[in-house]
């Protein structure tokens, strides 16, 4: 840990300051979307398709419309009259808002009821008759790309098959050469299953469009309120100055609250047409079957290695299941997100990645679930491959990694797919994690256990993330450059307001961003109010996902605070009757160099900014910064998991989980650790139980928390956390971002641990979720 440079009263970087947001949340005074209750609010419920693929021959909504309390029934035809039956997705595709021609997945939006009461709205759904004509459902991307498969996107001009996209990167020729030189090729084919972020609060909207003024106030569970404002303006044709998006307290996001969903568009259109606020809050079932799935990558990775365990090259073929619409929320030029970070933490010259995505009769999404755009899939693949390569070459999996790591002196390091990693010391991180786990002893114990017929596994993952998108030259979403902003106003009494373009969903921005300002200006963190989420009251930004808040919004905050501190220094010089260049700043004071007694506080300077200024200086103490990061940041970590596997049942238990994270400088260590705990739990969830699957008819299995299993406190392992601190050289405060590291890095560690327990039997893969029956089957097959 790095010692803080400010005293506790200031609460700058490095202090585990208590969270400002807690006071309201522990007293039930939070303001979540469903808590918003405007006068005359109408309630919306959505009729969803029970079928995965069917033509709609007609919709009879007469009985529903006649029900007492129903104000309107909205169908695709009505939306179509306003040009809103379809909307653009964040990947340049179009998505049905309300189905007009066909339904393409179970749970797709078909009609909406607007009523005076939510119970009545739901009752009315049962009165709508839809005449469906069954079409054959396609439930896997492999089926989808077969010759003669039914065309899912028959409405899409020029679309003659079910291919959603293709994308290729790396150097094919160089990679082929590397493979020609290899002593062996290690191959892993694995499916990263469909998952769902499932924040505890579902998605929702209260749309309040005033038909007289044209003002649209839209309360929305939004991770990216500014981007959503612009998209609303573009989709609905509303003038942007009349759109105000308010993202209130958010009950977790994890990527689920990045896209614009059909329900938002219908509720807004309904409010516009009816002239009353319209509220729609998803049920959990709606959330799981229709919004924001993640992953669903079928990956084949091949590693070219020498007999000495050196990696020469990597080849990946990937097929993604996109569902019915290609709607990944991702930077425009990367069709498979940042999946090309798949070269991981290793130094080798050649890689080639070939990706394609297919439409299927499943819900769209492809959201970055606690992940910087497909990095979770990439990290999983390389860490599983390297582990398997170690078995094939016959060296220890830890040693395999140590032999191939990018070395500390190689940074900045350009990978074979073009990322420039900023900083790192991978060998130190891995060695510390191994030491803490007692790796040598564990391997000895494993050998002894095998003699007794017991199964112990040790899994390692050493991941590198690419987060904080991103530099404007490369990263945009829907054309909007991925910059972010901060505005700082210091009032005459020295208290401040910080306004952000990013938006917390539980990460504690109201606290940590105040700490950055405290560090840079000396204003105590407790004196700084952080405002975010309301587009009328905050500067523009692309929002919070892909671990970009600290790398981009945090950098903007540091830079604006520096501008303020600099102006305050000039004012201090005036007050002290000294030259500005002779003024130095300590944690909370400005003083004349060499005479610490001749000092003024930041509060004195703030008062003077409105009362007593040097000649020619503008009044006030406020500024705004838009930050365009020069590069991504690259947090990393070394995780070691120890499991005991019951050979008779396949049940595995995590005995220990040691997680070392290096996210650069930690602003609030308490909050960082909380983020890691949560991320590790989601990694454990994906590896052990959490998945969305479908039957052959396209029925979603995993449509509620009885079938889509979320670990409780009882199943969740205990974690032991470690850290190293390698600052990002290009970030103003050296921070790299931590919200997603643990979710990205840990699944491979858990799965590697179970596979390691069975490695001596020749087992090399068990797909996630690693359910006991899959483990049992792997043992059974291997020992048959």
């Amino acid at each position, binding site marked *: 840990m790095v010692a803080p440079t400010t005293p506790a009263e200031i609460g700058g970087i490095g202090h585990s300051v*208590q*969270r400002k*947001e*807690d*006071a309201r*949340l*522990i*007293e*039930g*005074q*939070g303001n*979540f979307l*469903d*808590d918003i*209750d405007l006068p005359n609010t109408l309630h919306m419920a959505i009729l969803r398709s029970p079928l995965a693929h069917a033509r709609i021959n007609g919709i009879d909504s007469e009985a529903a419309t006649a029900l007492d309390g129903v104000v309107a029934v909205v169908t695709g035809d009505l939306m179509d009259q306003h040009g809103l039956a379809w909307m653009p997705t964040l990947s340049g595709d179009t998505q049905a808002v309300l189905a007009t021609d066909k339904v393409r997945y179970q749970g797709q939006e078909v009609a909406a009821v607007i009523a005076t009461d939510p*119970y009545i709205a739901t009752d009315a759904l049962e009165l709508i008759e839809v005449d469906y004509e069954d079409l054959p459902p396609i439930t896997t991307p492999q089926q989808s790309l077969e010759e003669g498969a039914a065309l899912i996107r028959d409405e899409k001009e020029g679309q003659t098959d079910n291919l959603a996209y293709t994308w290729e990167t790396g150097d094919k020729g160089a990679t082929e050469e590397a493979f020609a030189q290899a002593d062996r090729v290690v191959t892993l084919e694995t499916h990263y299953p469909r998952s769902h972020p*499932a*924040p*505890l*609060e*579902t998605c929702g909207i209260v749309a309040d469009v005033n038909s007289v003024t044209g003002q649209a106030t839209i309360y929305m569970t939004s991770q990216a309120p500014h981007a959503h404002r612009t998209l609303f303006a573009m989709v609905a044709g509303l003038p942007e100055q009349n759109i105000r998006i308010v993202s209130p*307290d*958010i*009950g*977790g996001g*994890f990527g689920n609250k990045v896209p614009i969903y059909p329900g938002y568009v219908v509720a807004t259109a309904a409010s516009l047409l009816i002239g009353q606020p319209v509220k729609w809050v998803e*049920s*959990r*079932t709606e959330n799981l079957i229709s919004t924001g799935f993640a992953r669903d990558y079928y990956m084949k990775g091949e590693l070219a290695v020498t007999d000495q365990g050196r990696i020469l090259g990597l080849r990946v073929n990937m097929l993604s299941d996109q569902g019915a619409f290609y709607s990944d929320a991702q930077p425009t030029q990367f069709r498979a997100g940042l999946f090309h970070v798949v070269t991981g933490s290793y130094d080798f010259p050649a890689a080639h990645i070939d990706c394609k995505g297919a439409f299927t009769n499943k819900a769209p999404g492809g959201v970055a679930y606690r992940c910087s755009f497909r990095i979770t899939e990439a990290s999983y693949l390389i860490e599983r491959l390297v582990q398997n390569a170690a078995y094939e070459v016959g060296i220890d999996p830890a040693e395999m990694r140590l032999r191939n790591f990018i070395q500390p002196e190689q940074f900045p390091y350009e990978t074979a797919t073009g990322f420039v990693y900023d900083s790192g010391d991978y060998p130190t991180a891995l060695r510390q994690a191994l030491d803490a786990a007692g790796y040598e002893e564990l391997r000895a114990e494993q050998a002894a256990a095998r003699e007794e017929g017991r199964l112990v596994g040790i899994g390692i993952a050493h991941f590198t993330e690419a987060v904080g998108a991103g530099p404007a030259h490369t990263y945009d979403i829907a054309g909007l450059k991925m910059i972010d902003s901060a505005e700082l106003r210091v009032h005459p009494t020295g208290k401040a307001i910080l306004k952000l373009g990013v938006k917390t*969903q*539980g*990460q*504690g921005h109201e606290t940590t961003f105040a700490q950055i300002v405290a560090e840079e200006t000396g204003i105590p963190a407790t004196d700084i109010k952080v405002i975010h989420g309301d587009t009328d009251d905050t500067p523009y930004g692309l929002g919070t996902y892909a671990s970009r808040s600290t790398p981009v919004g945090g950098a903007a905050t540091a830079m604006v605070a520096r501008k303020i501190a600099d102006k305050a220094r000039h004012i201090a010089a005036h007050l002290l009757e000294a030259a500005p260049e002779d003024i130095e700043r300590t944690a909370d004071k400005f003083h004349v160099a060499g005479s610490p007694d001749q000092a003024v506080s930041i509060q004195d300077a703030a008062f003077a900014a409105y009362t007593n200024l040097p000649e020619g200086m503008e009044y006030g103490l406020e500024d705004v910064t838009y930050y365009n990061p020069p590069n991504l940041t690259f947090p990393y970590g070394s995780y070691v998991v120890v499991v005991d596997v019951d050979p008779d049942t396949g049940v595995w238990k995590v005995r220990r989980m040691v997680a070392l994270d290096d996210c650069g400088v930690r602003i609030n260590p*308490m*909050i960082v*650790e*909380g*983020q890691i*705990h*949560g*991320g*590790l*739990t*989601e990694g454990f969830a994906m590896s052990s139980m959490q998945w969305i699957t479908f039957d052959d008819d396209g029925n979603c299995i995993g449509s*509620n*928390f*009885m079938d889509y299993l*979320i670990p*409780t*406190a*009882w199943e*969740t392992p*205990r*974690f032991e956390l470690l850290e190293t601190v390698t600052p990002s050289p290009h970030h103003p405060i050296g921070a790299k971002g931590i919200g997603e590291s643990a979710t990205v890095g840990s699944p491979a560690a858990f799965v590697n641990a179970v596979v390691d327990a069975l490695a001596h039997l020749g087992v090399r893969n068990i797909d996630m979720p690693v359910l006991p029956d899959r483990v049992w089957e792997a043992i059974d097959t291997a020992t048959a």
Partner: protein
Amino acid sequence: MEVNITINGSEHASDVEPRTLLVDHIRRTVGLTGTHVGCDTTSCGACTVLMDGKPVKACTVLAAQADGSEVTTVEGLKGADGLHPIQSAFTDDHGLQCGFCTPGMMLVGASLIAENTDPSDDEVRWAISGNLCRCTGYINIVKAIQTAAARVAESSNGS
């Protein structure tokens, strides 16, 4: 139908549809929105309230079933002498992130420590195993409940 429920010490008599869920009644009719809804299968515990001192999932109780009972919601945890120990412990130990599960977690925790002021890690985990949290990984929730329990034990020893 007429129901009469005492919520956080004050009586609320209202006319409700028989099918009204207790959670909807609390949130919409009474207007206390600290009790949350996170699922539709009685799985998540975000809606937990205390009914006659026992934790119940208010999404699975009809308002009519609560007729005549005493209900405590998160808004009723704070006493005349300030925050309930469970509330301050959740802040001190960083037991919450987004705060959506927090009311339910705190109410289950409060009811546990009313009976056991020295719960083991496993006892706490078992007690909250009907409540889901997507943010914290539970470690700091368990710690907060134990901290609160220790503080309650200490103050009752002291008095």
